[in-house]
C-alpha cells in the first residue's frame, strides 16, 4: 500500500471544506496535482496545498492508497466524503461529516470526530478512537433512509441521535450516548454502552443493544422476556438481556431493544 502524508498547516477559523481528501480523488494524481485540489472556506476557494504539506507516494488506484493526516484538523470538514476504497488515518481530531456517504474503504480517527460523521454511510468502516459528536451515522435533513451499510465503531462516547433513521449497517459505541439513540431506526444494529433516555424512539425495525443500562424507557416499549447469550443481527453477545419490542407508538413496529441485566 502506498502512502500520502498530509501535514496540517494553520487551519482557517471559518471551517475548511476539504471533500477532496479521499482516496478516490487522490488516486491517479501526482503530489503537485493533489496540492492543487480545491478546498473552500467561507466565500473563498483555496488549494489543499495552502493548508496541508503534501508528501509521499501517490497511487493509481484508490484501493492501493493510504492517506495519513499528521495531527489535529478540528476545522476541516467532509474528510473521506463519498470514498469507495482505500484508507485514511487521521492522527488527531477532525470536524464534521467525516466519512459522509462513504461506500467502502476504511477511516481511522485517533482523536474525536464532529457532528454528522458517517452520515448516510453505505459501506466501509469508520473507526473513531475518541468520541463522536451528535448525529453519528445519521441521515441528511428530511431523508428518511439513513446509513444503509458499513460499520462505525466509536471507542469513546457519542452525542444525541446516534443512528438516526438507521436503515442497515452497524454502529458500535463503547461509551455512553446522549438522548434519542436510534431514533426512527428501520433496519440494522446499534450497540451502545449506556444511554440516558428515549432509546429507539419511533423505531420501526432493527435492533438496539444497551450494555450498561438506560435511565428511562419510553412508554412505547413492551417487555418480551429475558434472553441469554443472544445472537442479534449476526453478532453474539454474552450475558442475560431483557428484551423489549417497540416503539409501539408507531403502528406495526418491529424494532427490538435488548438491555443487559
Amino acid at each position, binding site marked *: 500500500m502506498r502512502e500520502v502524508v498530509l501535514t496540517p498547516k494553520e487551519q*482557517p*477559523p*471559518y*471551517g475548511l*471544506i476539504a471533500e477532496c481528501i479521499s482516496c478516490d480523488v487522490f488516486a491517479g494524481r501526482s503530489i503537485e496535482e493533489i496540492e492543487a485540489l480545491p478546498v*473552500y*472556506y*467561507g*466565500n*473563498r476557494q483555496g488549494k489543499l496545498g495552502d493548508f496541508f504539506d503534501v508528501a509521499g507516494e501517490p497511487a493509481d488506484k484508490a484501493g492501493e492508497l493510504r492517506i495519513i493526516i499528521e495531527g489535529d484538523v478540528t476545522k476541516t470538514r467532509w474528510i473521506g466524503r463519498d470514498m469507495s476504497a482505500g484508507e485514511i488515518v487521521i492522527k488527531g481530531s477532525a470536524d*464534521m461529516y467525516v466519512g459522509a456517504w462513504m461506500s467502502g474503504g476504511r477511516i481511522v480517527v485517533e482523536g474525536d470526530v464532529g*457532528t*454528522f460523521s458517517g452520515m448516510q454511510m453505505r459501506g466501509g468502516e469508520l473507526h473513531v478512537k475518541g468520541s463522536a459528536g*451528535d*448525529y453519528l451515522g445519521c441521515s*441528511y*435533513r*428530511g431523508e*428518511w433512509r439513513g446509513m444503509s451499510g458499513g460499520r462505525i465503531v466509536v471507542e469513546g462516547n457519542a452525542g444525541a441521535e446516534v443512528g438516526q433513521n438507521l436503515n442497515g449497517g452497524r454502529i458500535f459505541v463503547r461509551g455512553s450516548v446522549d*438522548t*434519542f439513540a436510534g*431514533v*426512527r431506526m428501520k433496519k440494522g444494529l446499534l450497540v451502545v454502552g449506556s444511554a440516558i433516555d*428515549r432509546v429507539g*424512539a*419511533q423505531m420501526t425495525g432493527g435492533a438496539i443493544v444497551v450494555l450498561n443500562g438506560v435511565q428511562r424507557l*419510553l*412508554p*412505547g416499549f*413492551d417487555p418480551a422476556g429475558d434472553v441469554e447469550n443472544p445472537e442479534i443481527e449476526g453478532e453474539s453477545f454474552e450475558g442475560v438481556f431483557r428484551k423489549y419490542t417497540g*416503539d*409501539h*407508538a*408507531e*403502528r406495526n413496529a418491529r424494532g427490538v431493544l435488548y438491555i443487559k441485566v
Partner: protein
Amino acid sequence: MPRYTDVICSFCGTLCDDIEVSVEDNRIVDVKHACRIGTAKFLSSNDLEHRLLKPMVRKNGKLVEVSLEEAIERAAEILKNAVKPLLYGWSSTCCEAQSVGIELAEELGGVIDATVTVCHGPSVLAVHDAGYPGCTLGEVKNRADLIIYWGSNPMHGHPRHLSRYSIFPRGYFRERGQSDRELIVIDVRKTDTAKIANKFVRVNYGEDYELISALRKVVNGGELREESVAGVPKEEIIALAEKMMNCQFGVLFFGMGLTQSYGRHRNIDNAICLVRDLNVHTKFVMQPMRGHYNVVGFSEVLGWQAGFPYAVDFGRGFAWYNPGETTANDVLQRGECDAALVIASDPVSHFPRKSVEHLAKIPLVAIDIHPTPTTQIADVVIPSAIAGIEAEGTAYRMDSVPLRLRKVKEPPEGVLSDEEIMRRLLAKVRGEAPKLEVEAR
C-alpha cells in the same frame, strides 16, 4: 383626520387585519380593535425620543452621527471584506426587505439565518421528517370543535388568537361559538390560557415527548403499562386520547413549550405523527404558534429564492443548508463568521452568552427602528421605518397566508424603509448606483 380601516397589526404571527387607526399631524391618535401589545406598538411610532433617527458609525470607539451615504458605504465595506459574513434577523420586517437581503447574502457568499433558528426552527426540522398536516386559521374558526394548546400561552403571547380564530368566534359549522367547542391546554404550569380551558393537563417538565408517545400508543390501539406517564395518570391519558379520536375537527396549536424544551424537533416530529395517527379516526390538524409577525414570511421567501426555510450558507455559490452547521448560533459559537449584519432583531439580548461574545468581537452592522443592546455594540447603525406603520410590505400570517401591510403615517425625516436600505446596501456592495425607481419611491 385621516382614518385607516383594515390595517394589519405588525406585531405577532396572528397578524390581525381589522385594526382601525386614526392619524393626526403624522401622529397616531387612536387605535381600535388591536390588543394591548398591538396598540402599544402602533402608539410607539409617535415616540421619537426612543427611536433611532440618525445613521451612526463607530469612530475611535464611539458611535458618531454620519450621513446615510457614509453609513451605507461603511456597512458595504465591512460586508464585502468579510470571508464569512452572517446576515441575521429578518422576522420583524416585510418580505420585500427579506428578498433583497437574501440577494445580498448570495452576492456576499454569506450565511443567512432568521429568528426561526431560536423559535420554530425545530418545527421545520420535524416537518422535513414527518410532513405538515396544517390548515388555515379560517378553517379552525369555521370547523374546529376541539382545540388544544400545547406549550403555548396565547392569552399573553397572541392575545387575539382565541377570540379571532380558535375558541370564541362563531363559525360556519360552529354557530354557537365557544359552547360548540372544547379547549384543552397541556403545559407545565397553569397559565392564564389554562385557567379558561375546559381541561388542563399538567405535564412534567421536559417529558412532553413521553406523553405524546403514550397518546400515540393508545390512539394506535396499544395498552399502557405504566400507571402514569410524564406525571399524567393513565386514565387521564386514555380519556384525552379518546376525546381526540372522537372530535369532529381537532386542532393542535403548539408553541415554544414544545419546540424549545427537552427533545426539541423530536417533540414536534412525534406530535406530527400523533396528528397523522388521529387522522385514521377523525379530522385533525396542527399549527405552530409563530411569534414575530413575519417569521413565516422569511421561510417562504428563502424557500422560493434558495430552496430552504432558514440557515442557508451561500459560501460556495450555491445554497447549502444543514441546521447544526449553518445556523446562526452554531456559526457564532464556533467563531466562524468574521462580520455580521443584524436587521429587525436583537440577538445581543436573546442569544446565548457565547454567541454574543463572538458577535461583540466582529464588525457588526445593525439596522433597527430603535436602540437595542445590539445597536449599542454595533459598528454601523442605520435607522429604519416601522414596517406596517411607516412602510408598506407583505407579511405571512402564522398559517402561511400572505397579507399586505399598510402604511398609515410617514417615517421620521430621512429614515428609509428596510427594503430601501437593503437595496442601497446591495447596490453599494455591487458597486452600482441605486436604481432611480427606488430613489423616487
